[in-house]
Each structure stands twice: as C-alpha cells, then as structure tokens.
C-alpha cells in the first residue's frame, strides 16, 4: 500500500514535467516549475512524518506543556524545505525577469517562437 502523500508528491512532479512537454506559454511553464518544486517539498515534509502508538504527532516546538504525551515530527525536512522554498522563489523571480525580456524581444510568450538559435 503506497501512502497517498508520496503518490501526490510524485504526481505533482509528473504534472509539472507534462506541462513542459505539452504547453507553450512561458507563464504556464513558470507555474509548472513551481509545481515540480512543490511536489518535492511535499515529499520532503512527508518523509519527516511520525506515527507513534497513542501519541499524536505535533510540530517540533516545545511549548512548556510537555506533560501531554506527544511525538514530535522530524524537524530536519522542514528546515530543508524552508531553504528550498527560498531557492524556488528566486528561480521564479529570475524566470519572470527573463520572460518579460523575452516578451519585449519577441512580442509573444509562445515558447515555440523562441527558436532562432539552432543548427
């Protein structure tokens, strides 16, 4: 039985890459990049999930009420995802800047028009 969190994560990646194969609008491709990133982030966070018997999983924060029995989920993937989200945002910003310039040069956002470099 494959956990649905993993299936969702991998499907999101596949959807993003599918968009790269069959979509033409540059803005859609930028969104596709973000969907791929989100899929990986989902995978990372769900890798840190924890299920103990009779202990509900909580966020890894000590609140001073530790008498309540609880299991903390893994904090490392969350830290990695924090870093990774920022990287994703940076790629997004740069992609947007490039897209604006591409529109100014080519007058279109169709990725098939960007094929002067070949051979």
């Amino acid at each position, binding site marked *: 039985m494959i956990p649905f969190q993993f299936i969702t994560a991998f499907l999101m990646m596949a959807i993003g*890459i599918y968009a*790269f*194969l069959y979509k033409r609008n540059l803005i859609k*491709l930028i969104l596709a990049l973000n969907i791929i990133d989100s899929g990986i982030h989902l995978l990372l966070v769900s890798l840190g999930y924890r299920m103990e018997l009779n202990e509900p999983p909580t966020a890894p924060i000590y609140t001073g009420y530790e008498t309540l029995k609880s299991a903390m989920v893994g904090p490392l993937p969350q830290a990695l995802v924090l870093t990774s989200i920022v990287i994703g945002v940076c790629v997004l910003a740069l992609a947007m800047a490039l897209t604006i310039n591409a529109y100014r040069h080519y007058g279109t956002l169709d*990725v*098939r028009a*960007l*094929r*002067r*470099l*070949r*051979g």
Partner: protein
Amino acid sequence: MFGYWDALYFVFIFIIGLILAWLLNEWAKKSGMGTRETGDGTKIFISGEDPDKVVPGFEHLEGHFTGKNVMWGLTYALKRFFRVLRDDHTGLLTDYVSYLLITTGFVLGVILIWG
C-alpha cells in the same frame, strides 16, 4: 612504460614524417606529367577555393581564404551525418526537456537492470 610518452618519440615520428613527405614529393615529381611546373598547377589551391575566382554575390569576400570553404571535403563527405545532427538541434525548449527525460529514463533503466 604505461601512462607515459617520451617527447623524443615525437621528434622521431616527426623526422620519419618529414622523410616520407620528401620521398612522396620526389616520387610525385618523377612520375608527374609536368603540369606542376606550368599553367594552373603552379597556383596555390587550398581547400577547394580558387583565389582568383569570384563567386557571384560574394564579391566582397574575393580571394580571402574564408572559413566556409576550408574542410569542404570533410563536410561534403559527411553531409548526411551533419544534416542529421543539425536538424536534431531544433532550438525548441520542448525538445531539450524531452532529451533530458529520455536520458533520465535510459539511465534509470540501465541502473535498475544491471546496476
């Protein structure tokens, strides 16, 4: 010795090459019909370009040994191979992604089967 190469070998091979070239030249002189001494045979003729010939439409390039003509023999002989390669580079983003995915699939298949 494995993994090494003496610079002296280069000198030897160079000298042997010189001797061969000289012998070839001598043989060509002896068996030639005399066309190398007179007429068109005396002209320097590099890679299919006649320095005195003017190509229509390329008058401003007259007589320069330009990159387009050097190695014409090689490019002509392997015309089909080069055309396949050239056509393959379509410049479409989709194709670049396709090749990346095909590579991934191939690598994954090889590693899962033999790795």
